[in-house]
């Protein structure tokens, strides 16, 4: 071992952190080298100076007492807070919280579904009101048709470029429903097609637009202010039919339209 190595090892030698083999090597070198012995002496002297008990900072007796009191106070507060709280009784490790959690999720989900269905219903009611208002306005304003024609091959192409869908325009004349034309209307926040059929003196407005929701073929019937309103959601098209025609006949039209 030379002096450079020895310098590196000396602190650890002094700290008693060297292995037996290295310690022996350092000792051998120290025996031969005066410089390193002097360095060791200095380090030893420094160590003695640093280990002087009076150099260490001492806490006051008063502080010791205060500290003990503070710890005991903390212990008391800890004991008080360790009474099982509702959170702790549902400790994750115990899994007792799972049924409660499932019940909570179910309740929320059912409540949500209920609210959604109510919203759906109330939205349908809003549309029904708008459908009726549109029907009445179309008769009052003498603006029943934009394209007066009993020919479905005239009415259907007329909607092109005015709507983002092509409405089915069935010819129901053989069943006694005369097509008298088509009209562009606005319902449920979107442009929709209105087909106007006639039976005897009764005008019938058929509003239709693409159905993006679930299909429900059952025809719902509503009586409002002396008018009959029919509604169903076809696989592709939502239908609203409104007229002052009697409900039995109007239902026949509904079925005929649905059949197409």
């Amino acid at each position: 071992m030379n002096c450079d190595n020895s310098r590196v090892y000396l602190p650890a030698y002094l700290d008693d952190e060297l292995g037996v083999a290295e310690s022996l090597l350092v000792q051998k070198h120290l025996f031969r080298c005066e410089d390193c012995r002097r360095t060791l002496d200095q380090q030893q002297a420094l160590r003695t100076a640093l280990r002087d008990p009076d150099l260490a900072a001492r806490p006051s007796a008063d502080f010791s007492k205060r500290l003990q009191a503070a710890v005991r106070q903390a212990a008391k507060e800890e004991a008080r807070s360790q009474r099982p709280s509702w959170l702790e009784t549902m400790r994750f490790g115990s899994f007792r919280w799972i049924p409660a959690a499932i019940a909570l999720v179910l309740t929320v989900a059912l409540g949500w579904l209920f609210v959604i269905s109510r919203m759906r219903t109330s939205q349908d009611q809003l549309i029904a009101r708008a459908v009726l208002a549109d029907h009445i306005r179309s008769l009052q304003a003498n603006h029943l048709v934009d394209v007066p024609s009993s020919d479905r091959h005239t009415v259907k192409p007329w909607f092109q470029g005015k709507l983002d869908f092509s409405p089915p325009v069935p010819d129901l004349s053989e069943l006694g429903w005369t097509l008298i034309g088509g009209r562009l209307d606005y319902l449920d926040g979107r442009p929709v097609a209105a087909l106007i059929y006639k039976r005897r003196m009764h005008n019938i407005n058929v509003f239709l637009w693409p159905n993006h929701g679930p299909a429900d073929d059952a025809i719902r019937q509503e009586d409002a202010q002396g008018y009959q309103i029919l509604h169903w959601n076809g696989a592709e098209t939502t239908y609203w039919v409104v007229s002052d025609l009697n409900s039995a006949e109007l239902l026949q039209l509904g079925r005929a339209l649905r059949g197409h």
Partner: protein
Amino acid sequence: MTQQEKIGRFEEQISPHLKSAYNLAKWLTRSHEDAEDIVQEAFLRAFSAFEGFRGEDAKPWLLTIVRNSSMTLLKRNRNTRATLGFEESLQDQSEHPPDPEEILIMSCDRQQVRQALEQLPLDFREAIVLREMEGLSYKEISTTLGVPLGTVMSRLSRGRDWLRRILSTPTPVKREGAGL
């Protein structure tokens, strides 16, 4: 473990190291008030974490908490007090270990040693205090400071060189000789 048992065990195993805890905090912060605050906070933290203490050596365990509390306080103060400029300006000196030939007289006057240690850069100071005053092993210091063993050795070595340098007076002859 009941609360009574916990207090009993805590006061038996941890409280005896109050002197060490205070000494470390005092040397790290160089302030009596800060040291008392830190030790109190560290003792309360130690008490609430005491259930997790598995009867290893209590002293390094407590000193680790004291050291962490001290660092939190020092970092907070660093923004308000410019205490480190002085240390940093002196830190360079430790880069040059003293030449053993150069040093003839090393003062071991307690007041001078105290001043020298107070001036020592924080990294070195904490390693020296833990080793020389508290007698922790390299491994325990490494755990307490959260640095590798090699870093502990190098900080101890550089810290001691630094102390020896400011505690020693170079011989006038050498100085003049160097000037010629």
